[in-house]
């Protein structure tokens, strides 16, 4: 969905020219990299990754951007450096032979040096200048130039020379990274930030609750917009990756397409189609209610449709999940084999919270899944406070939504707070919330599932009984009997009872029918007899009537006979019959 007006004049800023570091994430935070042709200070305590950062800057410059670089090491020898970064897969030897990288180890041995009178650091300038010119370097790293202070006594000279050095580097048009050790109350031990005023990046390695997190912050970036937060970063076999894992905007695209849940009954509850693609789903419930099974079914369905999936397991090992899912006819192994499903199992205490996020980010970027499952998020609370977990989940959801990835979290709720506030209080963040809970009744526990919310779609308000058996997951209608909601065997019993009732009623009905039939027959026979009676009565009546007639006519005839006889003369006897 486009919220921008269709025609708009975008004001184009003229931005500071920048040099990409090639370190994943850092260029995003700084809006394109470090300031071009200027020095940047990277400071931090010992072991926070300064040298690696600067080395990546040089190596990426050489390998990705075709910009040769000089790495001047004041601490480690060139060979040591080469070995250190070889473990990250960078072949410094080769790069040096190709004249793309030049390593120069500056060794300062205090005991060998005697200072008498005035001097300057032209030697260093010449050395650096020579190194830069010999390969046409565009990038320079000075790691750690503060070692000068420990090697030489005259601080006044060093300070003056450093100021000159940075000016000279700017003139040389090389992008420089200077590293500095963190000092007390200052960014660096000797106040280098005073000279490097363009860009300062602070690295930190923090241990809270015995769990370490590496963090990066752009303290200052003159003339440029930059992210100001602390960003966690990761050093692993691929080197450094910084992830701008803060929720910046709420501007991601939305999809109205659906993704099936893998449980047909659940699909029906969600308007018949399932979740929205790119939405976030929370499945919460008490222990043993089948949260993982719901997640497993969802993963299974997704992979069956040929989509990709990552399953982050914080509680069980992948083998365990696969085995357990098999018992309900969900074969996840098959999907793993096809490369559609990837498991990542780690105890939450392995990393700090931020690192988990970074790891998730990284895996998602690499694997490009359609669905991500986190099972369960409750365990994350062991490594952070509630608010930290919440902020992590916000950022995770934002990130996944911007990538149009559907995410399903499972969360354990305790029996005493079933009311709806999940432990991580993320219910307001998610788009759909399924709640699975125990319904304890009649001496047994049964699972009831309902949709607490589902943004943007019609969904059922019913509590459904959720049955897990050999053939998988199934939702059954909860039986609403005269005594309330019934589940499990009580429901079955009630259903049986109902069935018996039907049979009995059928029987009763047939009895009544026969009775009626009989009654009808009796009635009909009664009607018949009455009719017979009526007929005989009618016959009787008719008989009297005819007799009367006959008698009447006979009388008439007799009378006329008499009359005629009395008249006598012309008496011709007429037959009146």
């Amino acid at each position: 969905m486009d919220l921008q007006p269709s025609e708009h004049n975008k004001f184009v800023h003229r931005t500071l020219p920048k040099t990409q570091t090639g370190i994943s994430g850092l260029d995003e935070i700084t809006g394109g990299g470090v300031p071009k042709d200027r020095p940047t200070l990277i400071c931090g305590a010992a072991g926070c990754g300064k040298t690696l950062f600067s080395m990546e800057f040089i190596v990426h410059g050489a390998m990705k951007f075709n910009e040769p670089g000089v790495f001047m090491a004041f601490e480690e020898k060139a060979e040591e450096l080469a070995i250190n970064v070889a473990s990250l897969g960078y072949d410094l030897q080769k790069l040096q032979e190709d004249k793309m990288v030049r390593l120069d180890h500056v060794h300062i041995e205090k005991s060998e040096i005697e200072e008498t009178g005035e001097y300057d650091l032209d030697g260093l300038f010449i050395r650096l200048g020579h190194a830069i010119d010999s390969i046409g370097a565009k990038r320079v790293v000075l790691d750690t130039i503060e070692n000068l202070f420990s090697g030489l006594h005259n601080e006044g000279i060093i300070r003056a020379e450093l100021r000159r050095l940075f000016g000279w580097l700017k003139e040389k048009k090389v992008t420089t990274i200077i590293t500095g050790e963190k000092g007390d109350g200052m960014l660096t031990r000797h106040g280098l930030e005073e000279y490097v005023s363009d860009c300062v990046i602070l690295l930190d390695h923090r241990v809270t609750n015995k769990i370490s997190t590496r963090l990066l912050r752009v303290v200052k970036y003159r003339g440029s917009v930059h992210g100001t937060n602390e960003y966690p970063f990761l050093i692993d076999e691929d080197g450094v990756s910084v992830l701008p894992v803060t929720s910046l905007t709420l501007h991601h695209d939305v999809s109205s397409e659906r993704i099936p849940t893998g449980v047909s009954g659940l699909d029906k509850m969600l308007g018949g189609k399932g979740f929205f693609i790119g939405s976030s789903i929370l499945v919460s419930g008490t222990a043993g209610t089948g949260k993982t099974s719901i997640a497993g079914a969802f993963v299974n369905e997704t992979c069956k449709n040929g989509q990709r999936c990552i399953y982050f397991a914080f509680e069980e090992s992948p083998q365990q999940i696969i085995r357990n899912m098999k018992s309900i006819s969900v074969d996840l192994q098959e999907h793993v084999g096809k490369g559609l499903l990837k498991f990542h199992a780690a105890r939450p205490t392995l990393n700090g919270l931020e690192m988990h996020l970074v790891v998730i980010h990284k895996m998602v970027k690499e694997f490009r899944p359609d669905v991500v499952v986190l099972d369960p998020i409750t365990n994350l609370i062991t490594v952070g406070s509630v608010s930290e977990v919440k902020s992590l989940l916000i950022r995770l959801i934002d990130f996944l939504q911007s990538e149009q990835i559907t995410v399903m979290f499972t969360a354990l709720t305790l029996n005493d707070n079933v009311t709806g506030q999940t432990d991580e209080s993320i219910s307001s963040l998610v788009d759909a919330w399924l709640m699975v809970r125990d319904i304890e009744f009649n001496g047994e526990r049964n699972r009831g599932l309902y949709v607490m919310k589902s943004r943007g779609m019609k969904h059922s308000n019913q509590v459904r009984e959720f049955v897990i058996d050999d053939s998988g997951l199934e939702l059954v209608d909860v039986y609403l009997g005269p005594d309330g909601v019934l589940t499990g065997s009580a429901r079955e019993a009630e259903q049986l009872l109902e069935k018996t009732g039907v049979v009995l009623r059928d029987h009763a009905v047939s009895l009544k029918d026969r009775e009626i039939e009989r009654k009808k027959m009796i009635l009909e026979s009664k009607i018949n007899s009455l009719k017979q009676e009526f007929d005989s009565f009618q016959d009787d009546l008719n008989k009297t009537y005819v007799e009367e007639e006959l008698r009447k006519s006979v009388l008439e005839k007799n009378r006329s006979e008499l009359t005629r006889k009395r008249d006598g003369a012309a008496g011709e006897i007429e037959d009146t019959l």
Partner: protein
Amino acid sequence: MEATEEIWELRLYVAGKTAKSVMALTNLKKYCEEHLKDKYVIEVIDLLLQPQLAEGDQILAIPTLVKKVPEPIRKIIGDLSNEEKVLVGLNIRPAKK
């Protein structure tokens, strides 16, 4: 001094003819003439002309005087204006009498 046959090999790194370099060279020559007569070789290296040499001797500061022989290697930076320090640095005179 025992090791009379020892030759002091000295290298002075400079960058162009700056005031400090000239001063350092003058000072060095003076001390050598005084204390190491005929037992020293001074090689002056101008890094502006041979920048690649800076790496080999780990040169940072200018001017730097490097004593390679006799061992141990020592570096003396600055304009060599402090005679005492230079002589100690060159092992010509023990640190404390």
